[in-house]
């Protein structure tokens, strides 16, 4: 019954490994995204105040403040002198992503990821395969632009349009005209270009990608000798270029690019279990290019 709904890139894996193992990381990610958002929504919508605030800055059970380093950095460019809680909160989040992989934010936290994944899935199902090729470095240009704009205007510039903030604020605090921006992102990903927003344009992802360049937790193509060249991992991956050096190269089997979201899509899609979650262990000097 759900057969026609399953994405093409999971089919090989589904046939060999069953539904659960071909959707394991996807399920975990959706669980993580929905749980985190749900925790923030519990307060305003149900009066259960475990966490307060939103993804920009939050107060976790009155114990610790967390904050989005990208917004804080824009504020600093805008000339803000922040109070201590938001600075320490941004530092904690930065450290966490240095361990978990910067773009784990994109795959495991950001609610827009659900929107764009849905657009990608629909694109696949409707055969909208032609593509306006965007340069994936556009996001770095946009990131630089937002910092420049912040410096020029003295305000947190990207927050005036940021769909990531708009969506989570819409869900946590209420609904407004901001939905049109989310719709715009969805239509962009569906009609204009494959994975346009998250993998090419979003400066939030670009920022976390920079943090994630040295991240400890990494996907590894450990059993790359078993690869059958079926292409499933490339099809499912939001950032296919990150796989090439690990899978086809002679060096480390770890996916080292900061662009990798640690989403585990390749692990789900691979019919022969090439990939697994692993860690970079600089102190053991393993995985270095030989």
């Amino acid at each position, binding site marked *: 019954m759900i057969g026609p709904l399953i994405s093409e890139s999971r089919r090989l894996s589904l046939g060999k490994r069953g539904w659960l193992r071909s959707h394991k990381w996807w399920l975990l990610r959706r669980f993580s995204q929905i749980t985190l958002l749900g925790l923030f929504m519990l307060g305003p919508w149900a009066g259960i105040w475990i966490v307060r605030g*939103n993804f920009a800055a939050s107060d976790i059970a009155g114990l610790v403040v967390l904050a989005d380093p990208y917004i804080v950095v824009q504020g600093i460019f805008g000339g803000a002198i922040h109070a201590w809680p*938001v600075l320490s909160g941004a530092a904690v989040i930065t450290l966490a992503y240095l361990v978990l992989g910067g773009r784990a934010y994109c795959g495991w936290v950001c609610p827009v990821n659900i929107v764009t994944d849905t657009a990608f899935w629909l694109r696949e199902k409707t055969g909208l395969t032609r593509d306006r090729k965007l340069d994936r470095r556009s996001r770095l240009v946009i990131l630089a632009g937002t910092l420049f704009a912040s410096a020029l205007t003295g*305000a947190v510039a990207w927050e005036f349009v940021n769909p990531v903030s708009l969506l989570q604020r819409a869900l946590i605090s209420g609904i407004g005209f901001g939905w049109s921006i989310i719709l715009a992102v969805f239509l962009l990903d569906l009609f204009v270009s494959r994975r346009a927003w998250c993998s090419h344009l979003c400066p939030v992802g670009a920022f976390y990608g920079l943090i994630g360049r040295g991240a400890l937790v990494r996907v590894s193509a450990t059993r790359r000798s078993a690869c059958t060249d079926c292409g499933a991992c490339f099809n499912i991956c939001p950032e296919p270029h990150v796989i090439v050096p690990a899978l086809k190269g002679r060096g480390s089997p770890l996916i080292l690019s900061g662009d990798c979201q640690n989403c585990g899509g390749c692990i789900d899609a691979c019919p022969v279990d090439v990939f697994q979650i692993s860690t970079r262990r600089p102190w053991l000097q393993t995985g270095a290019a030989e």
Partner: protein
Amino acid sequence: MASSKRKMTRRTAMQEIARGAGAACLGGFSLAALVRSASHADARALRPPGALPEPDFLAACVRCGLCVQACPYDTLSLAEWGAEAAVGTPFFTPRQEPCYMCRDVPCARACPTGALDREIPSIRDADMGVAVLVGHEDCLNYKGMNCSICVRVCPIRGDAITLEPGEVDGRKIMIPTVHSRHCTGCGTCEKHCVTGHASIRVLPRDLGLGGPGRNRAGRPA
């Protein structure tokens, strides 16, 4: 591309149209959203107590909504597109819900960024704006009645607004008079004003006050 040489099937035609429509929607919505926010975000927004001056506020505030959630009266909200404040920032509309001037200022204490002064000593030090009698033609006191609602509801009674004697067309009247040194801009007077739109309204100080004058040499008079 090879595909463009082929005869266009209905399917590809539909796809092309859908793509065009999608891109058009994208551009249209984005632009509309921007124009909307740009045309509505103006200097009239009232910030929570203890807020930095507007330019500094826009750099420091991360739009987290902790102040909004700390307010026990649901006075504050985060601006959506098209609201009077910059999108995502906290503001309040006194005519709907004024600031009730909590003694412990929970909104300012909840701010993690310093956009609101976390160490504000007292709510009396808050400077959300200043009440201004903007509609004196409709103000009942100006018509010679003894409404004085604004004076009676003021939480800083006797200091922030007083009744001062005046004269209009030979009739003695009592004019509600705001003293900006004491007024915090909480908006209780605006909330309770009985005229259609409030005749007394809270404005940010730079809109509501004349400011000190300067002599012809440019020095403070």
